[in-house]
């Protein structure tokens, strides 16, 4: 384990930025943290998290896939992919680190999504423990997320005056090597104390007892037709906020943009809340907002775990709790239709 003083963290950022693009949460003009490319003068935000999750780095909201140009009877096809280079995402929270595993299971299983895979390969993730979790946090509901000790290539802990680093992977070792001259070797006393402090707060979180045990693979018949969906979805606006701020929502559409003399084929996030989601030649298979709403929660709580060894498609980051215009969210759904509180 190594450490540096909090005052000198910008030196570390500067060192990394010499060789790699470095992204980290920075407070925007409206005071809301957003992942921003670091340059001199940018300060690491104190916010618990960003509104937009870091999934953008691997699965951007819009990306061009290829370009067709036509002239006469000829069609020219260009691979317009940009050469990926190594980059660092700094300050990723435990929930968001876990979300990458959930995305991996979709994009890295056969057929592998080469666009996603390339970015994943080039990304170095430096996570940071959650010194001040929010009341909307419920990562404890799900397995393999530890806010006191997040995963990632490097784990960092930020205390009042210092930042501590521990490498977890080869990529992480390389990162540590790079900042070696700016950090000093230390024991884990301070980190152990920080972990205890966080663990004590986690025990006080209002959603600490939320359980997902009632859900999981094989539960489609149990939940698909419960009457509560009507009530839960009654005032859903059908906007895409929950899906777009969600770190694990992975649905996308592929569309063609007419450039005048050709086509740019691009991929963009899609939302199961939208009326034209998965519209097919025969029309749409989910005609009401209730069906669209149900799809989102069934996907996270039943279908995804069914296809992925019981792993839920939610990491408890709480973004949908904070951002849904009608304050309807997965916690309310879980409590209403079956999530039992641990005794």
């Amino acid at each position, binding site marked *: 384990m190594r450490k540096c003083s909090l005052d000198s963290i910008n030196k570390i950022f500067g060192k990394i930025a010499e060789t790699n693009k470095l992204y980290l949460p920075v407070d925007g003009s409206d005071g809301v943290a957003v992942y921003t490319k670091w340059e001199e003068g940018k300060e690491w935000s104190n916010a618990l998290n960003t509104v937009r999750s870091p999934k953008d780095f691997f699965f951007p909201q819009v990306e061009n896939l290829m370009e067709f140009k036509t002239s006469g009877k000829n069609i020219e096809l260009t691979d317009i992919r940009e050469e990926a280079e190594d980059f660092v995402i700094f300050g990723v929270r435990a929930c968001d680190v876990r979300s990458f595993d959930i995305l991996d299971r979709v994009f890295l299983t056969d057929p592998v999504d080469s666009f996603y895979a390339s970015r994943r390969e080039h990304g170095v993730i430096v996570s940071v423990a959650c010194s001040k979790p929010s009341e909307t946090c419920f990562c404890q509901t799900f397995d393999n997320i530890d806010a006191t000790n997040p995963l990632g290539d490097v784990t960092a802990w930020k205390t009042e005056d210092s930042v501590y680093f521990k490498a977890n992977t080869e990529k992480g070792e390389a990162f540590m090597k790079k900042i070696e001259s700016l950090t000093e070797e230390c024991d884990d006393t301070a980190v152990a104390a920080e972990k205890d402090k966080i663990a004590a707060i986690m025990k006080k979180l209002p959603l600490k007892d939320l359980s997902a045990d009632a859900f999981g693979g094989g539960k489609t018949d149990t939940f698909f037709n419960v009457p509560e969906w009507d009530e839960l979805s009654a*005032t859903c606006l059908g906007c895409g906020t929950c899906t777009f701020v969600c770190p694990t929502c992975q649905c996308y559409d592929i569309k063609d943009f007419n450039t005048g003399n050709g086509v740019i084929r691009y991929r963009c996030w899609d939302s199961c809340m939208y009326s034209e989601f998965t519209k097919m030649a025969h029309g749409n298979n989910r005609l009401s907002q209730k069906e669209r709403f149900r799809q989102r929660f069934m996907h996270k709580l039943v279908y995804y775990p069914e296809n992925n060894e019981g792993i839920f498609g939610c990491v408890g980051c709480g973004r949908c709790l904070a951002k849904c*215009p009608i*304050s309807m969210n997965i916690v309310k759904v879980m409590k209403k239709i079956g999530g039992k509180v641990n005794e």
Partner: protein
Amino acid sequence: MQKITRDQLVEKAVALLSDGTVSAVLGWSRGEFDYDITPAVFKSAEEVKENFVWNDFCGANFSKYLVAQTGKVEGKILVFLKPCDTYSFNQLLTEHRFDREKVYAVGIPCEGMADIAKVREIVGDGIVSIEDDGESLKVSTLYADAPVLVGAKDVMAERCVNCKSKKHVAFDELMGEDGEVIESARFDEVARLEAMTPDERFLFWQNELSRCIRCNACRDACPACTCEKCVFDNPDSAVENKAPANSFEEKMFHIIRAFHVAGRCTDCGECSRVCPQNIPLHLLNRKFIKDINEFYGEYQAGAEVGSRAPLVDYTTEDLEPGEVFERGDQDA
């Protein structure tokens, strides 16, 4: 902060459900916390008694829900309307968007709603309870040893600070005292933007709109956006898009939307309230309202049912297009 109490509203809803005046109630339903309130359709007195809530976080404007809900409910639906909501209510009636006969509207006074983001700015994260203390909110957090008292005025939502009216322009029944139309400072920020150079103004909107994630929450919450199929959702429209293909388009979405609701927007402020990216979208709409006022005389959409908006009406007093052009030229 609110003068009318939750118990009074519950009593009213229960009475109207019990005597058969209405068969459903559009109201605010309790959340996990004291601020995450969900609009709900209550079908029974028991549900109302258990989950109905009324506090400083009941900002949602129910008028638009009437478009969908009046078609679903047998008999009448009770809707509670704050003064600003009644303008949207009238505007929707003007546009024949729901059946007035299917609605029982109860006007309720509003002292202004709180913005949870402003509360967080003061007390920080980890809010576990918020109690109304009359003039202030008593906020308990995971991190402060004692509850923090926050002045209601200090955390009031922008649209309520600049409240345009405490007067109800539509209702079947009114609870509490009715208020007056207010001379607000709501156009001050627009005037500030107008005073900028075109480059400064472009930069301002560039910065704001570049945060857009195209979630459509502004459109979906907007009571003036009630098209059965929005052009941006129609795959056959050639402008349908789930994401901005480029930055030009990203800006155009909001500008086109602002044009579409011009003259119909009542300035309810729902667009900015629901924006997950804190984009001050209401300023685009207010610019149109301000221009309409200046070009055609004072006009408030929704002030009465059936009024003809200046942009779809013609009078011989109307401003000549050339004068608009000249004015635009001066601003530039």
